[in-house]
């Protein structure tokens, strides 16, 4: 057991992967000399050398495309893209090649690679540095999309992702990198797939993932103080989606609030709300509520407060479900 924050947990997971599996290589912009803009790969270049921890030119499509080729040739590349807002030049490689080679070759060639991408707002960053476009990845058949919110899950899911026979897009919530510390076992995997019940309760289910789990958790505490019994679900794996885990909770509580910071329209909360009403319309005591970002461009620092869903918005939504 060792106490780590989310960033350290990721660094440790990469260290473990590099030391235990020769096929693992890391590549990305500034990940070597500087240890990445968030220092997630700190120290690894010195430890494993420039053939295993590779600084690359600024070319996202090539980073993913080269990692893809490496994976086909038997390696286990872990690519880092610097921010989710800079991942789009590689979107074509992900959707048209990474996600499809197993299908295209009927299993003969596969691409077991991981694409790590920091995401999310709340740090007052420049344009393109704050957005949460997980929905555009979660719509791609053939990749898995994983979003940890705790140091434990970060380590366990990253190791599972690197070992997974299929490609994984691994989204890291920037504002949680150093938010909390947790005791983590050395040998540890978290299955890609199942949701995590973060807190059990009976009256209402709050569902979230990644960065917004923090506010969701806080909202749960506020509600509990008012005597409301809240179940908090951390989705963790957006795809393949654990619909049974979600439905089981809402069958119990009859009420659900889905929280994300991406824009409302076309956001992944729509998928979850649609699923809940499909599977348990008759157990629903109130409409599934969505608490999300706005259908606007993610704003710069001064308007961030207007944009990001607040604890108050979550509790208000939960109370709306209880009023009905």
């Amino acid at each position, binding site marked *: 057991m060792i106490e780590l924050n989310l960033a350290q947990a990721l660094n440790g997971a990469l260290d473990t992967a590099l030391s235990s599996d020769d096929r693992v*290589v890391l590549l990305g912009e500034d990940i070597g000399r500087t240890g990445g803009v968030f220092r997630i790969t700190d120290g690894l270049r010195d430890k494993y050398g420039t*053939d295993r921890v*590779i600084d*690359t*030119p600024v*070319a996202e*499509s*090539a980073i993913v*495309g*080269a*990692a*893809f*080729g*490496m*994976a*086909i*040739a*038997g*390696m286990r*590349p872990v690519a880092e893209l610097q921010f989710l807002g800079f991942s789009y*030049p590689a979107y*074509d*490689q992900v959707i*048209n*090649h990474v996600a499809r*080679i*197993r*299908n*295209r*070759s*009927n*299993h*003969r*060639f*596969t691409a077991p690679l991981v694409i790590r991408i920091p995401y999310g707002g709340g740090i007052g960053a420049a344009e393109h540095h704050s957005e949460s476009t997980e929905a555009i990845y979660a719509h791609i*058949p*053939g990749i*898995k999309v994983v979003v940890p919110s705790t140091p434990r899950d970060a380590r366990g899911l990253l190791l599972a992702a690197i070992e997974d*026979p*299929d490609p994984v897009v691994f989204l890291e919530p920037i504002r949680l990198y150093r938010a909390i510390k947790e005791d983590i076992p050395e040998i540890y995997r978290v299955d890609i*797939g199942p949701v995590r019940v973060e807190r059990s309760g009976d009256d209402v289910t709050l569902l979230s993932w990644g960065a917004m789990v923090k506010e969701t958790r806080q909202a749960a505490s506020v509600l509990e103080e008012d005597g409301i019994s809240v179940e908090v679900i951390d989705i963790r794996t957006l*795809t*393949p*989606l*654990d*619909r*049974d885990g979600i439905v089981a909770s809402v069958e119990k509580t009859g009420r659900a609030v889905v929280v994300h910071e991406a824009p409302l329209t076309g956001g992944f909360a729509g998928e979850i709300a649609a699923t809940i009403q499909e599977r348990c319309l008759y157990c629903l005591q109130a409409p599934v509520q969505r608490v999300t970002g706005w259908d606007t461009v993610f704003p710069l620092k001064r308007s961030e407060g207007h944009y990001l869903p607040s604890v108050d918005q979550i509790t208000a939504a939960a109370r709306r479900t209880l009023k009905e």
Partner: protein
Amino acid sequence: MSSGQIEPDGNPSMFGLVNSDGSVRDRLPITVEDLRGLYADMVEARTFDDKSMAMQRQGRLATYAPFRGQEAAQIGAAAALQDDDWVAGTYRDAALNWRAGYPWRLLVLGRTGDERGGELPNGVNVLPPSITVGGHMIHAVGLAWAEKLQGNSRIALTSFGDGATSEGDFHEAMNFAAVYATPTVFLCQNNGYAISYPTSEQTKSKTIAAKADGYGMPGMRVDGNDVVGVFVAVREAAHRARKGEGPSLIEAVTYRMGPHTTADDPTRYRDEAESRDWEDRDPLLRIRRLLAKAGGWTEEWQEDLETSASQVIEEAVEWAENVPEPTVEQMVDRVFAKRPRSLTQQLNETGDD
């Protein structure tokens, strides 16, 4: 209408060994027997191409992209590789892929619209053809890089068209290959057109080979209709790569004699005169002329070649057309290594209807 090619032919700065009329510019570095082999391969490839065009017209294949006229570039390049080298080509590279180990039967199966056509035999390191223009070149960089990092001697060849050199992915792939000195051979089959858009308008560079300079990489322009020239150029580039001297770009200047695909109508964008011009530069014809002079070609041999090629292709077609209809389960089970529960649920629910 303008001519498609930047500098169609007869350019002394373009490397080549066999001229259109079958004369040679220099002593050939391969035996007549080997040349006969290359010729036989080209005949087999063209037989496949003709057969595919015919089948498509009969509705037995989905859209087909013929390579007629580009047999020398493809066969010459593949012949210069080792058996387990990697190949990442395009929708038009059936001849290249076949010569590198991709069985005809799977190429036919793929073209009937069946993903199982992409399931290559183990040991054949050819990627199923990529349909996006440009996206696959970097794959060959990654493949080659992995071999290098793992201490293997395998190299990777990627084949692409003139049109593909306009995509940003070409640039990124060339740069990565050069920066990391990956053992990659970039083979551009400059066939004069990206669908309807002539090479001469695609770039203000005089040649595509010249683009290599900007990446600090050797670039070479070769007569793409000369199978020996292409073979020698690619062999040299492969040799450099295998020795650890990094990537090269080879521009094989050729001509697409047929339509872009079976859905295309070339009369909309090029003169018949131009196409007729290129008929005399047919890559098969010139080797036939050369071999005839050297006594290595006879009418009977040609007939034998054609008969046996037809038989081989017919067998492949027969096999492919008898592959059982694909099932829903197969479609669903190709997405991941293990079918996730979400897909099983979809299967159960949609199965109900």
